[in-house]
């Protein structure tokens, strides 16, 4: 839907309990979320009324597609910052509220991390002596099991899905040189390596598909806009890593939004790699970023050159369409350029800026100091603990606190974002209603809130327009309503 673009990030966290005889991830994830929900507010349950994750953007005939399961009995709450916090399969998951720009996406992603770390502290008091809960914001256990960090972008329904596939495969295969989180070793049947750029790349087996848990596709076809389906589609991006670096998250969402806006607004010539699945593996396994990929036009290019091409096309599109950008997107463009320049010269210039070069630099220093081979479990442990959400144990936090990993967000705004919704999407209405009238809301989801004001039937307030329900549109009305009844009446419900 052109820029600024509604977007959000959902993250599944890894979880374990040390000292437990029998660790049950579902029970522990439930304890984690319940402990937090009990510590902050009355819980409001998630409403599954409008969920249809099995709908396929390619149409109803995709033969290989099975709808993913939804486990409705698990813990599932809505937070006052507009987020959804729940148990998905065997992991705690935080789905950020809808936001309007990449900086906000990074902010509400970090707010989620803070919420999870507070949850760990709250849950810890319910554990037996000698047990300790650990939660990682990463994507793999190193043994072939992966859990996701998905981005969502709201697009115009008129944008043909096939056009997204045509233009995004090469982009997704190569953008990891910017937003990969780094990983020691390989898994899922991929060739052995010491270190690779992405946590997730090893797990991708298909170019396009509906699945998210097996035979993962680079472009996911889930067609569930959580908004007016006649106007919008939601691109569900499952190919990314969970990032600790604020800059990595910011650029990941920023450059992806810019490229999607270009595809929506113009018809750029085809830019495609010959074998996207092979390419995503090969790019991840080459921290020099110099691997030549075969393009469909017969030429070859490095992942950085392909990213340069997308960058140049975006600039050209914005210039020709005479689009004036918000400052945040200008900043994304400038950073994209400087990061690509550095990647081309020497990726290790980005040690201290992006996740994977920072992790690699640290592992190399540690390895040399302790004379370790790459097979040392201590390196694998550093890889894991880089992603710990507990700031006292998290290596990424140590790097940020000592100024060795660049920050673009402030602690105070992250704390604020953990409890306050973004002002410029419908998340404002969701979060503020929850804050003001928790006892009158029986359920909420992305596109509606259900009130119980003591009448015969419950009253559902639809929110099919992600850019309405903002502070500007309903702020005064909501804050001046003394009761939920008054609010519903003022809304004409």
């Amino acid at each position, binding site marked *: 839907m052109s820029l600024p673009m509604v977007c959000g990030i959902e993250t599944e966290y*890894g979880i*374990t309990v040390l000292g437990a005889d029998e660790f049950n991830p579902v029970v522990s994830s439930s304890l984690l979320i319940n402990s937090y929900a009990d510590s902050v507010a009355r819980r409001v349950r998630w409403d599954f009324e409008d969920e249809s994750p099995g709908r396929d953007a390619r149409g109803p005939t995709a033969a290989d597609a099975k709808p993913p399961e939804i486990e409705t009995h698990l813990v599932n709450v809505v937070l006052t910052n507009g987020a959804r916090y729940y148990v998905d399969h065997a*992991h705690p998951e935080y789905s950020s509220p809808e936001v309007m720009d990449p900086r906000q996406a990074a902010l509400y992603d970090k707010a989620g991390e803070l919420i999870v770390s507070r949850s760990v502290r709250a849950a810890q008091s319910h554990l037996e002596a000698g047990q300790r809960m650990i939660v990682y914001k990463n994507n*793999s*256990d190193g043994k072939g099991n992966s*859990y996701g960090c998905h981005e969502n972008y709201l697009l115009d329904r008129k944008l043909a899905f096939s056009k997204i596939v045509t233009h995004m495969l090469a982009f997704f295969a190569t953008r990891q040189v910017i937003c990969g989180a780094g990983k020691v070793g390989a898994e899922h049947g991929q060739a052995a390596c010491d270190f690779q750029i992405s946590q997730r790349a090893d797990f991708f087996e298909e170019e396009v598909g509906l699945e998210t848990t097996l035979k993962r596709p680079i472009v996911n076809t889930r067609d569930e806009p959580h908004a007016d389906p006649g106007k919008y589609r939601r691109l569900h991006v499952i190919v990314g890593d969970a990032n600790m670096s604020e800059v990595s998250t910011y650029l990941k969402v920023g450059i992806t939004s810019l490229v999607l806006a270009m595809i929506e607004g113009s018809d750029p010539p085809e830019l495609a790699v010959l074998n996207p699945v092979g390419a995503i593996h090969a790019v991840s396994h080459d921290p020099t970023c110099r691997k030549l990929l075969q393009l469909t036009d017969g030429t070859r290019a490095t992942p950085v050159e392909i990213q*340069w091409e997308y960058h*140049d096309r975006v600039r050209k599109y914005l210039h020709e369409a005479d689009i004036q950008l918000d400052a945040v997107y200008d900043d994304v463009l400038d950073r994209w350029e400087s990061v690509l320049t550095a990647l081309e010269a020497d990726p290790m210039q980005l040690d201290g800026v992006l996740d994977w070069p920072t992790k690699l630099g640290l592992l190399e220093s540690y390895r040399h100091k302790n004379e370790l081979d790459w097979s040392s479990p201590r390196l694998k442990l550093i890889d894991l603990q880089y992603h710990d959400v507990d700031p006292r144990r998290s*290596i990424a936090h*140590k790097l940020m606190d000592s100024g060795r990993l660049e920050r673009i967000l402030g602690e105070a705004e992250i704390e604020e974002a953990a409890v306050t919704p973004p002002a410029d999407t419908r998340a404002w209405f969701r979060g503020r209603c929850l804050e003001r009238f928790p006892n009158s809301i029986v359920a909420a989801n992305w596109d509606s809130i259900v009130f119980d004001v003591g009448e015969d039937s419950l009253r559902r307030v639809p929110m099919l327009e992600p850019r309405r329900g903002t502070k500007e549109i309903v702020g005064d009305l909501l804050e001046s309503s003394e009761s939920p009844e008054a609010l519903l009446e003022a809304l004409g419900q």
Partner: protein
Amino acid sequence: MAEQERRQVSRREEPAEDIEDLDDSGVERAEKLKEETDELLDEIDAVLEENAEEFVRNYIQKGGE
């Protein structure tokens, strides 16, 4: 193609070379940097989970999403 030219230029740009020889202050700087790195690595050792091999072996997740 102005865009193409601009990209070529920006891509040929070399990072600023530090042509200064390592004089005394350079050596001092390098030593300070090494000290800081050693400090950080010590700090990491202080928080790393015990028994790395067992810990890493036992960290097993169910696939998600």
